[in-house]
């Protein structure tokens, strides 16, 4: 086999002629992220995350076989953004509730999202109702999380050579179907292998999930987010004012705010809280520098509160997954609001027979047709992901904005769960 030289981002690389670009780049110390590629397989080209420029044209890196003199770009700002955008598309197309996902922390797609720095998605979430199929013998297929990478089609086979997974339907209705008969033939090891190669939490093996504790998962890179020391901060003339609120959230992010323990004593040296559950001030009494909003909007009251925050705060920050895209409350978004309310008030186990009343009063906020992320209601300046975000992470962002200190959140601190 002939050795050839080619060029990646201006660096001269060498590899065997005809080698797959992903592998060839890796040998030269350049990482091209991908969610569908397997070294030993023909390229699938389905996830498109590995997009590169070949002689100026965009192409999936996994479908390139290196030749002498190829000019390849991998990490131009434009390509980095396209790659991030394609990942964001996967997030909005499926229903990826990381905080409630068994694969969280071991999920390759999630890890790639951390690496590319996805704080929120530029696209609106689609919230399509998808099924969780637990009928197979060993495997549970959660269609909410499937990114249709086709890895399982190619890699999971019965001993007698039958495929277990395949596509069904087409267009926006495309799903990965599972052949129950063939699946039943899989050994425990084969089933676990299917779970392992799935880049998301779409394929799970019954009884084998949640086996690893937090901290031990593949992508749990622990970096104890160090707080910026308070005494080093350039204090401005007056104390900065902060307002906080929890909309459709669980107050978990507020609890996390308090997690800086004794640090809170330093915080109140620098800032004062106006409207906030922490102070129990119900209405804005002064204009604030920063508003921290936990939770998204599920009813009309949430929207009014959020709009008041926008009016009264210079900088508005969505804190936590629910604020950013709806989070856990948005699990209802795939179901019509009528079905949700009927189930809750008319047809639940505890509702009285022939119950017809769904709570309604002019003083009760109206339920919205779905849970909205805050940035679809008002302009949001920053997003802090996490469920909840680490306390130091939140305060570092706040301090950075208020006192203009140099600061950037490193990716191991980034968490969606």
């Amino acid at each position, binding site marked *: 086999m002939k050795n050839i030289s080619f060029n990646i981002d201006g660096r001269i690389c060498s590899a065997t002629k005809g080698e797959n670009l992903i592998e060839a780049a890796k040998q030269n110390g350049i990482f091209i992220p991908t969610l569908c590629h397997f070294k030993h397989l023909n390229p699938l080209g389905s996830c498109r995350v590995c997009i590169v420029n070949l002689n100026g044209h965009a192409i999936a890196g996994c479908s390139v076989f290196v030749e002498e003199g190829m000019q390849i770009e991998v990490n131009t700002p434009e390509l980095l953004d396209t790659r991030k955008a394609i990942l964001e598309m996967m997030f909005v197309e499926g229903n990826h509730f990381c905080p409630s996902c068994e694969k969280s922390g071991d999920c390759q797609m999630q890890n790639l999202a951390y690496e590319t720095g996805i704080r929120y998605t530029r696209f609106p979430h*689609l919230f399509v109702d998808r099924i969780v199929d637990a009928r197979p013998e060993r495997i549970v297929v959660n269609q909410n999380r499937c990114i249709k990478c086709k890895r399982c089609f190619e890699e999971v086979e019965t001993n007698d050579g039958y495929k277990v997974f395949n596509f069904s339907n087409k*267009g926006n209705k495309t799903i990965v179907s599972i052949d129950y008969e063939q699946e039943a033939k899989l050994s425990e090891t084969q089933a676990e292998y299917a779970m392992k190669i799935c880049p998301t939490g779409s394929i799970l093996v019954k009884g084998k999930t949640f086996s690893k504790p937090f901290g031990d998962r593949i992508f749990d890179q622990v970096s104890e987010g160090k707080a910026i020391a308070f005494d080093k901060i350039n204090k401005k003339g007056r104390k900065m004012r902060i307002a906080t609120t929890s909309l459709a959230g669980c107050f978990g992010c507020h609890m996390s705010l308090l997690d800086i323990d004794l640090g809170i004593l330093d915080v109140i040296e620098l800032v004062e809280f106006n409207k906030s559950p922490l102070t129990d001030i119900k209405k804005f009494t002064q204009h604030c520098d920063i508003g921290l909003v936990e939770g998204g909007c599920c009813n009309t009251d949430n929207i009014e509160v959020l709009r008041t925050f926008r009016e009264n705060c210079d900088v508005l920050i969505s804190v936590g997954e629910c604020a950013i895209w709806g989070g856990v409350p948005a699990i209802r978004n795939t179901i019509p609001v009528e079905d949700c309310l009927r189930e809750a008030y008319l047809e639940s186990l505890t509702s009285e027979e022939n119950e017809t009343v769904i709570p309604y009063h002019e003083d009760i906020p109206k339920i919205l*047709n779905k849970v909205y992320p805050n940035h679809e209601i008002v302009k949001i300046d920053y997003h802090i992901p996490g469920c909840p975000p680490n306390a130091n992470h939140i305060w570092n962002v706040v301090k950075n904005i208020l006192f203009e200190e140099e600061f950037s959140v490193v990716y191991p601190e980034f968490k969606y769960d």
Partner: protein
Amino acid sequence: MKRSKLLTRLWELQNNEGYISDKAVLELSKQLGVSKNEIEGVVTFYHFFHRQPTGKYIIYLNNSILSEFKGFKKVKAAFEFETGCTFGKYGQSNLFSLFETSCIGLSDQECAALINFQPVTHLTPQSVKKIINQLKKGVNPRSIAHNVTSKIQFTPKPSKTVFFKKYELGNALNKLKSNTSETILQELKKVELAGKGGAFFPTAQKWEISKNASNSEKVIICNADEGEPGTFKDKSIIENLPGLIIEGMIIAAFVTGATNGFIYLRAEYSYLKSKLENTLIDFYHHKLLGENCCGIANFNFNIQIQLGAGAYVCGAETALIESLEGFRGEPRLRIQYPTENGYLGSSSIVNNVETFAKAARIIELGSEYILKIGTAKSKGTKIICIAGDVAKPGIYEVEWGTSLKKLLEISQATAPYYVQSSGPSGDCLNESDFNRKICKEDLLCGGSLMVFNRNRNLLKILKNYTKFFLTESCGSCTPCRAGNQIIYAKIKKLKQGICTSQDLKEIVEWSAIMQKGSRCGLGQYATNTFVQSLAKFEKYFDGIVTTCAENCDVEFDMEKAVYDYNLLIKNTQN
């Protein structure tokens, strides 16, 4: 059974039993030695195959934009009222099943539908009533079917006509004996024949690559899967000149040494299948096909027809090949061209209907004849189908270089405002383009023009296009599958009237991502028209969005968000 026979077998089952039953899936999987869901994957890819029992009459009503403007909604309601069935639902009646389908190539005769694949056109609620009553009485759909031959509205003067002139069987093939593959390729090169499916790849180059391919197995495939909404020009060639297409294929086989040919005919045109079959029989009868055909020793070539089953994406050559092989019609990765690795590993030439027909005419009439027609870079004529707001919809054979204005004149367009060239994935044109000439130097047209007048709602058109792409995406790559859904959501937001100029900017940026990221032309060009329209109809969009700076606040429609809740309370609290 061979895998490549799967589509044909599925058609038999669909036609005989009305659906593909679980039992049939199981049987097929056993015969092919694959899992059941692999068969299921193929069945569910094509929208003319059903997994649940259907009625005696399956009605497919076209939902393309031209149909929408010709009363689609009323016709749809009439079908539902008269049959008592709902579109897209199974098991409501033993007699009828109703489905919507994308363009069926009858844009000049909308509203149009297929009843057991027999076409009925110019539908109105009244005619629907009549048709359904006839069906209920047991009249065969064949006798209800309308003559749907598209009217040839215009041809250039006889010395400049290439396609729609007298055709005599074998005229082009008679020239084969006095030619070699080299001389034929040279003739094609002289007139720079380029693929008429819309990609305009040099035909001679494609044939030459296949001819020189190390692969000894060669196949000629005619792409008659014309699925781009608003396009029916290939249909007119099949109707009027089926022999010319076949001669073109035989010439290609002569050049490359292929022994097998396929015509991949879209199922929407299955009523034309017998016409093609009869022509093939004629060719065999005259020994122009088969062993030692055209009187040339050792020249053996056979052609068979494969019916598609309802998938727009199968018009992409590699998807078509996958489909021929009996798989889901997902386009292949562009690693090898079909001329290197095509149908069942052979070196395959896939060309459009018009390309083969033109190739035959070039050989028949000689390059000299063709070179006198057209412009410097586009030689000969182009078949263009025109539909929409014109008094004379139909087929126009025009010399390359004819201006759009002239076409609008002769087709008697009424107050043209917006012209869609080459279908939804093509170009969006406004008044400023009307002086442009249709040719390689200026405006390349794949063969279809949809004309819209001032009263047509642009957003409605764009919404229809996007919906088409999101249902017809093969589903295997993220930017196309998810991207079209995202763009669709944006159009709905635009219709709500809460968009800002920021949203328009996003449409352009997001389209660029789809364009770069998608694996085939479908995703790459799906938003082409939308993006072009933003510039072409800037004033219109200015009128429906609020202009704002980078950091402007967002709009939210609270009324709409509480609509469902209010309605529920109203309906339950009495």
